[in-house]
């Protein structure tokens, strides 16, 4: 199981704890382990926003009335099935859950759901996220780089940050050398810088590839 497959089953994992295969992936992938830890923490905190018992039916009336007053809801849309509307004077009997409190709680739940669906940890390999997040900010890595970093994350997580940093540096080198060479195509020194930059990158790829050999 790779990181992408793992992330597709995230909601199930958060709800039920996941299966053996998920557990196995978690043991070998610090990035996903960190992600699950973060999401579980969010889920735990979100539970604190929810009531521990069913609210009084009057609470629904209050929410509905508030939404009507704000013009956010048309007549008869809110009340749950079987729920009888009460007089608005019962508003004072809702002691612990005011309409505003409920709106905040619902908003928090919606927010949590949005976070759960869209949450993307920074340390996850960009390559695995690009398919889901095509509008993400441009990164200093091309698709080959992202694939390499993703591979390292799985096979040698401890080496990942060093390679990531080195790739970022060498990409910056290539970019600068390209600009210099384009600025003056007759400049042999600029061409040599560009060639050297590519050699540096080639070296990093060879080293990273050698890691994965048996």
């Amino acid at each position, binding site marked *: 199981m790779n990181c992408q497959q793992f992330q597709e089953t995230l909601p199930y994992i958060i709800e039920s704890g996941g299966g053996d295969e998920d557990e196995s992936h978690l043991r070998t992938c610090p990035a996903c382990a960190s992600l699950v830890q973060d999401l579980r923490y969010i889920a735990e905190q979100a539970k604190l926003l929810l009531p521990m018992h069913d609210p009084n039916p009057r609470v629904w009336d209050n929410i509905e009335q508030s939404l009507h007053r704000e013009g956010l809801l048309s007549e008869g849309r809110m009340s749950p099935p079987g729920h009888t509307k009460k007089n608005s004077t019962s508003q004072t009997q809702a002691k612990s859950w005011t309409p505003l409190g409920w709106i905040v709680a619902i908003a928090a739940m919606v927010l949590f759901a949005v976070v759960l669906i869209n949450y993307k940890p920074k340390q996850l390999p960009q390559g695995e996220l690009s398919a889901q997040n095509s509008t993400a900010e441009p990164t200093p890595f091309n698709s080959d780089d992202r694939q390499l970093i993703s591979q390292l994350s799985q096979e040698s997580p401890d080496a990942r940050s060093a390679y990531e940093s080195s790739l970022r540096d060498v990409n910056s080198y290539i970019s600068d050398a390209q600009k210099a060479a384009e600025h003056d195509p007759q400049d042999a*020194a600029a061409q040599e810088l560009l060639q050297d930059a590519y050699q540096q990158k080639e070296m990093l790829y060879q080293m990273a590839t050698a890691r994965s050999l048996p």
Partner: protein
Amino acid sequence: MNNRTQTASRARHAFLLATLASLIVTATTAAAQTSESRKDAKIDIVPGGALNIVNGSGSVTLHSNSGHQVLVTYVVHSEKVEVDQNASSNKQRVELRTHALPGQKPTADEARVDYDITVPAGVAVNVSTTSATITADGLSGDIGLSSETGQLTVRNVAKSYVHVRSMTAPVSLTNVSLTHTDIQSSGGAVQLNNVTGQRVSVGTTTGNIEYRGDCSGGGNYLLTTHSGAIDVTLPPTASVDLSARSTNGTVENAFPLQQKSHTSFVPQQGRSFAGTSNSGSSSVQLQSFSGKIRVNKQ
């Protein structure tokens, strides 16, 4: 009185014996826990053969010797790794490879293996490590060294080809003469002391480059970096045709150079300079994108 003296003496003996026994048990237990084992091997190799070594962490130390055998001593620091020795039937190629045993996931410390290897003259050596340091002293065959983070040291080498690759590992070459030297280092600093040859090429991305020597031999010396600094110190006797350019960084020259009447670029104050000293027999090119270049007089 005598009885009391004898009793005290026996007590002292008993105490000493108990202490000694305790020390022996402790030492034995520690030895068992580290599972350190040392092995020796002698492997035949023909002149001009190749020795390949792969070792993740620990160290690899190489010396030169006469004869036709590779003499290997290695210390393994845990039972989770082992060393495979392979030799081709024609004795052209010898390989030493450290690897984890199936099902084992040794820590960096447990994966350490320290090699001490004597190499016959003229045998090419290729060493690849992750964090293990590599030291090559006095070898006469071609040398290829590669490490991500382990210090790379080459000393007392002549008339060969030296190829070094490093990710962040520091690289040091001392007394390397008449040799084709090619060093690529992403972030590791490179130090060259008395390194000469027909071609001496160093390229880094962020690593600093330091050269001390006379650039003799009428060779091409090319030191290139993106953002590292280049520091060159030459003796007054150095015979060089030198150019230094930093696209966005600065250059400083404290070495007496005669200005050239013609250069391939227009010298720019503080960004580039060029000149010759003595007969200008060796070409020295120093290039940086944003790093600082300094040329000093020894």
